[in-house]
């Protein structure tokens, strides 16, 4: 009976939790509330279920009996969900349930009945659940992968821990010795050098150092708490050894004395391990988390050959940190508040600056065991705590955060302690910010929310009663009042800024209904500096430090951060500093140098400001500020008078001085001025990617053409004698949306640029013929009239009618090339919307032959593509290019990449644009790219991971979330329908839909083929591998080169440049074609077109447009040897081998290549055949 009740309770309990989940999703989804509101938020959330309950009760009373059926229905659907819920709750859950107090049970049952009654809310809610379901399932799977498990590695560690404990417990005490005596003795007897922090103890120190049996030994940190990830390559275990309180005097917290004694104690422990386990373990000193005050012992297993103790298997990868610590009662907590000074200088005792880092560093030693208890207590109380720690650890790891000072000082411990604290307090009236009932994902999200929303460097999060202010240098403060400790004392200001940015980004990602944010939250690694930062800089510091420099790296880094931040101002949105810390050192050695050798700087720039050439400083009248400005900038500061009459201190930067960007000049100047770092020591990685583009990435290059376009529109609209009035003139070309590889007007010698395509639509009229073919002819008549009128109206315009699509008379037959004297050229086609109706009618007509209908279908697709989609995409992209300054350059560089790898004749430029834009409108896990480098590399990163077999590309081009969840699902459904219809991907390989084009096949119907898409992915992957391998040494140009040996043959084209040099007599013909008429002439494209129509059935051609003047070819697998037939669509060699009966046909490769050579004639310089 009791069993049944239990079960029932459980079944009912879980869905109610789920309901609560959703309530909080909704409130979290609101995103960036004001800081003030945040405090009350958690309280509200907890209050919410109760409120619901009350109102629902009332409802119930008012409602009639009819509801019974609904209850049943609800329960059945609930239990449907339960299957999952129950599955992943482990045994602990039911155990927990068993001990829940009676009152709780009652409350829960109460709530459950009301919840069962609760009606299914609006569709928005359903949508939310739908998404979070998928998300939840994925989170569950992830957790199952990373939860720690007990394996051989863990057993080995446990054995090692036991062995170490025995050794420490059996150590002989060492009598008090003077500092120098103790140091000397240890060095001579055990060859262990005491790792005193710098500055070292004074020679005449009056205190003594001694060793005594540890007061306690314990394992702390993530290992005993089971919050370490199984996938970590090295299992790290922290072992604390409590030093007996008797070793310390009351004032030992002052002037490093505690740390000297600690170092000596540690050295004694090291000596003991050394003598007892020399053969089993490798022992080294290391700074604990980069804190040079606190060295620890790092113990790793030795290579297996010399293992004495057979039971410990040293092959496993683990590491034990031995950390001496001290009891809580040794020093008074009030002396170690962040506001106190603990490093007294004998000379100037009047000016005592607080030493928060020193104090907290010491204080954290006293609290090691306490925090273990606290976190353990929380983990017992809140089931989801461990999982949320694992999620947090994964999240932090992917973003490169860690407990070490080099990694920012926010790691797994800080994460766990933060959640634990927020579960205990921090809310209004000291109530907890989070509730024990939260799920792991809720805890995770709430913690991120807390990090994102409140600026802990301005207003501290205080857990218990107490009033304390942050230090004020930008580092955060989470004050654990009960233990008088700032949990985040180690977190550096720049890491904190970065952390907040990341948290905000992730919260936005998780709030995005349209895309599944799971991968970008947990799976994608975003540590890589190249994709993360717009600019990264390596600084190698000179070996000798000048004596006046502060010893603590944290202080030094903070100074560098402040200088750079002040100097760069709003040019950057983030500055990250990452020092490379000295590695662990041998016991017998003294620590080499506490200062880092290399510092890596990363900048995220603000694309609007980074290129600014003039900085205005304070006005000349403000004497004090002007002086400060001058001292800061040195000789760069100039006093200038500006147009508006103001006289200010200012800085003038010249753009592009010897290839250095303005940012580089500023950084170099500041480093030289304030840190005497000369040019050789400072290296900027990866010169600007934008320089790979002709004339740079500025959109200004497109301005002349856009102005000409406006002029053209005015000219055409100004024509009065046109038979019909004009409805629209729309641009439909890459050149008119800042997206052509080369800016307009820049073309290879010998070739004129292609005219920019434009569509024109006239007002409707009944005088149009009602026949598709006749419409095409009528269009030509219109164009003839238009060209005549245009040339009459403006003498500077040349207008010519050209013909196209000769083979298919239902397609557009004529276009009008309009060329201005300035060289701007446009190709105008008439858009007539009746065509669509007529073609659709043909498609529906069952009396027509299939071939006619097929032609009509193709014509319809082309009609939509040319007259509807392309103008729409052109408008959308030019709008986005003005919105995202880095977009234009990214698109162009990305197109260049496709082109350089000979893919551009297969993949429509519009698809490339969509992939590039995806990186901007759906940038997770990064923010919106702010430079061409990050935009390009992230687009490439995504391309390499795009599984186009199973994933559609969906991009919102509206810029204001016009693409709704339902639309997105519609596109997905369409994609899945295509995959069902065409599972072998013969027709649709890539699926690219936008809010303007829900069909998703406009640009990809029939091309690229699967082989080509596969090659695209392979190229992107190898490019990403190359980037990861090279990191900051990357040469951007190397990403744009690929070997030609993969192709069967390569046609080296004779570029126009060479031909125009050989003036001889060939150019008689060229001369016949004067400048204007050669606009739009591109021999290579025409040649490729003919090759494809003549040999397309046997050869797959690859061409990169103007970027690479070659055409490469692969013999199609369809041309392999087969039985001879009369109607094979390629030139063959018949062959009869003795064994076989029939006559086989194989493709006549030499014959075809010889044909191609004759066809290309002077266009081909050489044909290279790759032997296989």
């Amino acid at each position, binding site marked *: 009976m009791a069993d049944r009740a239990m079960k029932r309770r459980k079944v009912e309990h879980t869905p109610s939790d789920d309901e609560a989940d959703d309530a909080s999703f909704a409130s979290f989804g609101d995103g960036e509330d004001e800081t003030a509101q945040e405090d009350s938020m958690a309280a509200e959330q907890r209050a919410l279920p109760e409120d619901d309950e009350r109102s629902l009760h009332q409802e119930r009373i008012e409602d009639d009996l009819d509801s019974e059926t609904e209850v049943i229905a609800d329960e059945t*659907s609930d239990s449907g969900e339960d299957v999952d819920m129950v599955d992943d709750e482990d045994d602990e859950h039911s155990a927990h349930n068993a001990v829940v107090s009676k009152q709780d049970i009652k409350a829960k049952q109460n709530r459950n009945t009301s919840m069962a009654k609760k009606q299914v809310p609006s569709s928005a809610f359903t949508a939310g659940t739908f998404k979070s379901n998928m998300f939840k399932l994925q989170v569950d*799977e992830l957790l199952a992968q990373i939860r720690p498990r007990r394996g051989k590695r863990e057993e080995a560690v446990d054995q090692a821990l036991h062995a170490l404990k025995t050794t420490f417990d059996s150590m002989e005490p060492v009598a008090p010795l003077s500092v120098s005596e103790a140091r000397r003795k240890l060095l001579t007897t055990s060859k262990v050098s005491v790792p005193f922090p710098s500055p070292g103890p004074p020679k005449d120190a009056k205190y003594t150092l001694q060793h005594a049996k540890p007061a306690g030994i314990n394992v702390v940190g993530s290992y005993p708490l089971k919050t370490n990830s199984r996938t970590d390559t090295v299992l790290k275990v922290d072992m604390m050894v409590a030093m007996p309180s008797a070793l310390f005097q009351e004032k030992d917290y002052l002037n490093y004395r505690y740390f000297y004694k600690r170092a000596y104690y540690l050295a004694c422990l090291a000596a003991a391990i050394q003598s007892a386990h020399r053969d089993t373990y490798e022992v080294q000193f290391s700074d604990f988390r980069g804190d040079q005050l606190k060295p620890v012992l790092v113990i790793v297993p030795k290579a297996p050959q010399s293992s004495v103790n057979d039971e410990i298997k040293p092959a496993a990868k683990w590491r034990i940190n031995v950390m001496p610590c001290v009891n809580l009662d040794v020093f008074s907590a009030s002396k170690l508040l962040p506001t106190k000074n603990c490093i007294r200088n004998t000379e100037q005792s009047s000016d005592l600056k607080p030493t928060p880092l020193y104090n907290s560093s010491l204080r954290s030693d006293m609290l090691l065991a306490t925090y273990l208890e606290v976190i353990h207590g929380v983990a017992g109380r809140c089931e989801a705590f461990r999982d949320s720690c694992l999620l947090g650890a994964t999240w932090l790891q992917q973003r490169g955060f860690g407990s070490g000072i080099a990694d920012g000082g926010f790691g797994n411990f800080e994460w766990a302690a933060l959640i634990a604290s927020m579960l205990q307090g921090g809310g209004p009236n000291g109530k907890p910010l989070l509730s024990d009932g939260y799920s792991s994902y809720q805890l995770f999200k709430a913690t991120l929310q807390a990090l994102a929303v409140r600026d802990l460097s301005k207003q501290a999060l205080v857990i218990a009663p107490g009033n304390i202010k942050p230090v004020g240098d930008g580092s955060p403060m989470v004050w654990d009042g009960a233990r008088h400790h700032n949990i985040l004392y180690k977190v550096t200001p720049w890491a904190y800024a970065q952390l907040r940015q990341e948290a905000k980004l992730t919260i936005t990602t998780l709030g995005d209904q349209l895309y599944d944010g799971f991968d970008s939250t947990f799976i994608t690694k975003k540590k890589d500096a190249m994709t993360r930062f717009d600019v990264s800089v390596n600084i190698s510091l000179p070996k000798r430090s000048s004596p006046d420099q502060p010893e603590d790296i944290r202080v030094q880094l903070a100074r560098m951060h402040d200088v750079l931040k002040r100097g760069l101002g709003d040019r950057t949105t983030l500055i990250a500093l990452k020092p490379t810390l000295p590695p662990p050192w041998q016991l017998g050695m003294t620590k080499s140098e506490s200062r880092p050798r290399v510092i890596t700087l990363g900048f995220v720039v603000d694309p609007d400001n980074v290129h600014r050439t003039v900085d205005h400083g304070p006005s000349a009248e403000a004497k004090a500020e002007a002086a400060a400005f001058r001292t800061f900038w040195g000789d760069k500061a100039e006093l200038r008078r500006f147009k508006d009459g103001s006289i200010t201190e200012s800085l003038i930067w010249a753009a592009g001085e010897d290839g250095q960007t303005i940012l580089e000049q500023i950084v170099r100047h500041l480093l030289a001025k304030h840190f005497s770092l000369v040019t050789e020591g400072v290296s900027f990685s990866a010169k600007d990617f934008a320089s790979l583009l002709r004339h740079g990435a500025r959109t200004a290059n497109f301005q002349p053409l856009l102005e000409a376009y406006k002029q053209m529109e005015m000219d055409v609209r100004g024509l009065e004698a046109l038979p019909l009035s004009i409805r629209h003139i729309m641009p439909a070309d890459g050149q008119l949306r800042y997206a052509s590889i080369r800016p307009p007007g820049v073309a290879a010698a010998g070739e004129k640029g292609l005219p920019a395509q434009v569509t024109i639509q006239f007002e409707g009229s009944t005088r149009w013929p009602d026949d598709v073919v006749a419409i095409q002819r009528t269009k030509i008549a219109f164009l003839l009239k238009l060209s005549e009128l245009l040339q009459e109206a403006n003498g500077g315009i040349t207008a010519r009618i050209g013909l196209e699509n000769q083979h298919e008379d239902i397609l557009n037959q004529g276009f009008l090339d309009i060329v201005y004297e300035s060289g701007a050229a446009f190709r105008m086609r008439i858009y007539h919307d009746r065509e669509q109706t007529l073609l659709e009618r043909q498609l529906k007509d069952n009396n027509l032959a299939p071939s006619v209908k097929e032609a009509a279908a193709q014509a319809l697709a082309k009609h939509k593509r040319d007259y509807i989609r392309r103008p729409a995409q052109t408008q959308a992209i030019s709008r986005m290019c003005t919105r995202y300054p880095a977009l234009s350059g990214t698109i162009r560089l990305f197109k260049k990449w496709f082109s350089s790898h000979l893919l551009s004749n297969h993949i429509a430029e519009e698809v490339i644009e969509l992939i590039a834009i995806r990186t901007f409108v759906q940038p997770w896990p990064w923010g919106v790219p702010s430079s061409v480098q990050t935009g390009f590399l992230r687009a490439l990163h995504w391309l390499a991971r795009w599984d186009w077999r199973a994933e559609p590309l969906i991009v919102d081009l509206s810029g204001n979330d016009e693409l709704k969840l339902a639309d997105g699902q519609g596109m997905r459904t369409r994609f899945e329908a295509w995959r069902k219809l065409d599972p072998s991907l013969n027709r649709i390989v890539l699926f690219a839909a936008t809010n303007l084009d829900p069909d998703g096949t406009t640009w990809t119907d029939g091309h690229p083929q699967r082989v080509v898409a596969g090659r695209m992915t392979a190229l992107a992957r190898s490019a990403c591998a190359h980037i990861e391998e090279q990191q900051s040494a990357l040469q951007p140009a190397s990403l744009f080169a690929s070997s030609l040996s993969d192709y069967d043959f390569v046609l080296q084209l004779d570029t126009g440049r060479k031909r125009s040099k050989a003036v001889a007599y060939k150019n008689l013909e060229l001369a016949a074609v004067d400048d204007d008429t050669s606009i739009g002439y591109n021999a290579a494209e025409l040649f490729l077109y003919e090759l494809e129509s003549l040999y397309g059935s046997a050869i797959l051609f690859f061409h990169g447009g103007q970027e690479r003047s070659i055409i490469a070819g692969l013999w199609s697998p369809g041309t392999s040897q087969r039985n001879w037939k009369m109607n094979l669509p390629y030139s063959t060699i018949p062959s009869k081998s003795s064994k076989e009966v029939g006559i086989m046909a194989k493709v006549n490769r030499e014959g075809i290549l010889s044909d191609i050579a004759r066809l290309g004639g002077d266009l081909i310089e050489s044909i290279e055949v790759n032997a296989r």
Partner: protein
Amino acid sequence: MVPVPPPDNVMPTKLKATVPISVNDFVVLPLTLPTTPSYPVDAKHYLYLRLNAPKLPTDSTPREVFCVNVPFDATAATLKVLFSQQLGGGRLEEVRFEGGIRTSKGIAAPLTQSRGKKRKRGLEFEGGGEAEVVEVGQLPQVWDRELHPGGSTAVVRFVDKESAELALRAAKQAVKSGRTIMWDTPASAGDEDARPLGSARYLAHHTLRYPDPATLQESVDTFISAFNAQDDARNKELARLRAVPDEDGFVTVTRGAKQKPAELVAEEAAERERQKKKRERKQVGEDFYRFQNREKRKEEQRGLVRGFEEDGRRLEELRARRGRMRVE
């Protein structure tokens, strides 16, 4: 340079094999192709010949030779030279190139498509008699010369049956004796009309693409007037049909001659839409009856369950595709 895995490609199988003299009833005639500076390789092209045997023979069929896999740059002149100078010397009357085999590429070859659409289209008029088929209003040609895609066929008509047979015999003999037969390009065959290939061809195409406006105007005018005439004729015919009862005394119902102007049509559609909206407003709302609400809720619940199952399935798929979830 980024290393790249080779794309999918079938490696050619190396088999020791000989070229047969004939295949099915075709003679296999190897032609030695001229070498070019960019590809100085002695390559052979294999032309298949036999007496023409179409399904529906005509009077001239016995005089014809059917050629398969014609070289892409073949012209009537080059084939004439081939047969008259190298293969027996039979005199040719005519060479007819047939459309290349449509490939699965989807890009129709513009070079081989016969231009010249028949201007007569639409209904066949009863009793109106077969309208005369004329090709008018064609747009100007934009290529100066047609080329043949791989595997194209041609029919060569000789002056008499003997010449045709002679040519085939000569071909057989030449193959047996191993005599080298050269393929002459139009230039070397002395075909003055054949235009050169290479950049000259594309420049010529570029020039031809932009025809003289006057020519173009004339072509379009002719087309449109022909089209209008046809349209008028059709309308008249339709009017007649409306008026005249057939032999059983019935009047055929046909589409009205007059079409409403587009604006009017649009207006009517808008009016219909308005009416519909009005009607809808009057109807009882979807949440009026309790059962409606209940149904809706149930539907939503089912949707939830479906969504949940869907998610489970998607995750399964994901797992199948990527294998175990791995943090990068």
